């Protein structure tokens, strides 16, 4: 790949070189013909040695001068061309830089510098229009998710309250109560999906702005304590050896760590071992597994890896979204029959 400026310059230089090369035999021929003509006209007879010497001297001097001026011309030419082109293409490079720095999720429109060249002005306005419509489509999509999730909460609450009331009916049979409980479970899953979608929309629309210094080991310990009452039968080997302080929103950090840990616990059978280690700024959580998971889909939305899991299918996409905001690095790998999630804060 070559740059736009050097592309035109190279051609010019090559052309000048060819002209220079071609001009040498022409000069040689013209000057020697002229020389012989002048000698004949004035009936000057030189010894062959002297004639050759003079011919060489004159041709040499003229060639030298020609090359000198040619070089001067070419150098100036290159310098001028570079200067003019550079200034000419400056708006283009500005535009390029702006587009490169553009981030759709930041919701900020791009301001292009005004240019007095029609083509560039047109380019900028076309790109502006394109970006604006993208930003507004993106925003609408986010707002839609957020609004739809909000609107669903009330009907969900109605269904929930009706089920709770139904449960109070004294003529209820065991089988009917079982159906209510199963409906309850499905309903709580719908509510969770809804809440998680709302959470994702909120993270993406740059809410949760509060920043705090948080000691990773402390927050991990809190979450582990909370989870240990739910997962008494699972073994967690922990090696927390870091006093790393991370800067972020405490709620988001807690959600992210909880999701990662819940994920490991949910996919671990009783009495199997979960390894957790925190050293410096790197957190590694690993749990035993059968197959490697599809890395491309893992962090996507609703990409549940196995059919029997009751999760919302959004846990890891929330992890991804949170880590993206703070530029933390989340990686998945599969080694020696273990799923390994690594977060570099």
């Amino acid at each position, binding site marked *: 790949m070559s740059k736009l400026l050097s592309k035109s310059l190279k051609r010019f230089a090559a052309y000048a070189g060819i002209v220079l090369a071609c001009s040498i035999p022409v000069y040689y021929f013209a000057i020697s013909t002229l020389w012989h003509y002048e000698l004949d006209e004035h009936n000057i007879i030189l010894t062959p040695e002297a004639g050759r010497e003079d011919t060489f001297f004159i041709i040499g001097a003229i060639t030298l001068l020609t090359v000198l001026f040619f070089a001067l011309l070419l150098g100036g030419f290159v310098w001028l061309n570079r200067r003019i082109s550079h200034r000419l293409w400056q708006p283009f490079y500005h535009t390029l830089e702006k587009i490169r720095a553009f981030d759709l999720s930041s919701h900020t429109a791009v301001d292009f510098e005004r240019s007095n060249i029609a083509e560039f002005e047109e380019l900028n306005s076309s790109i502006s229009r394109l970006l604006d419509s993208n930003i507004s489509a993106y925003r609408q999509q986010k707002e839609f998710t957020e609004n739809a999730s909000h609107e669903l909460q009330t009907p969900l609450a109605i269904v929930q309250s009706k089920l709770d009331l139904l449960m109070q009916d004294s003529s209820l049979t065991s089988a009917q109560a079982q159906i209510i409980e199963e409906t309850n479970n499905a309903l709580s899953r719908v509510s969770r999906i809804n809440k998680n979608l709302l959470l994702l929309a909120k993270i993406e629309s740059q809410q949760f702005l509060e920043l705090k210094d948080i000691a990773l080991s402390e927050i991990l310990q809190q979450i582990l304590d909370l989870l240990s009452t739910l997962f008494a039968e699972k073994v967690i080997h922990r090696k927390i050896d870091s006093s790393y302080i991370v800067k972020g929103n405490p709620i988001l950090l807690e959600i992210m760590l909880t999701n990662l840990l819940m994920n490991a616990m*949910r996919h671990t059978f009783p009495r199997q071992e979960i390894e957790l280690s925190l050293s410096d700024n790197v957190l590694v959580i690993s749990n035993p597994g059968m197959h490697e998971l599809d890395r491309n889909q893992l962090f996507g939305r609703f990409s549940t890896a196995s059919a029997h899991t009751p999760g919302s299918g959004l846990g890891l996409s929330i992890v991804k979204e949170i880590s993206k905001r703070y530029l933390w690095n989340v990686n998945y790998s599969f080694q020696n029959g273990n799923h390994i999630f690594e977060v570099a804060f």
Partner: protein
Amino acid sequence: MKILIIEDEPELAKGMVGYLAGQSYLCELATDYHQAWEKIGTHHYDCILLDLMLPGGNGMKILDQLKAQNKEDGVIIISAKNALEDKIRGLELGADDYLAKPFHLSELSARIFSVIRRKNFANSNFIQQGELKVDLLAKTVEVAGSVVTLTKKEFDLLLFFMGNKNKVISKSALAEHLSGDLADMLDNHDFIYAHIKNLKKKLTEAGSVNYLKTLYGNGYKWQYE
């Protein structure tokens, strides 16, 4: 005990009234901002259930005005938004609790129970039920005068049941109450069995009547006449 339900969704309001009426609460209903404001101005309530998004005005304004008038009514905000800022602002403005939609009616009832308790008994706060005596401030339980040591979760469960006297509570409502947001990420809700079993055992071993009944294999009821 009087409760004002400010909720514009009639079906949801009906559900709440239906459940709470059976709990010896007297429920009144307001379906919009002005109606709510009228009722609050003329009556005293032990607890107000306040939906934030109301036709005619924002529920936050009601909270503002309650505070300006130094009203002592307990307030539980019920919101579809579940936005942290709303929650913080609501609690700052003097709301006692915040419940996000959707919720189990048993959760609502337990929260009302605890808000009313907190409001009415500022210094000493006991619930006496037969031979059972619960100290809400010290978080201790006595059966016929002797102290029973409960874990935090067991104490929590006991209060939840007492706040839902004679109601059938589903396993999923209990699981959600005990594990909060984590409930549905769990493969099963078996962990609540252990807590309930322990609570039952501790109380009956100390000489309490077994108030806690298991129904249909997946529901529980705290039976006390």
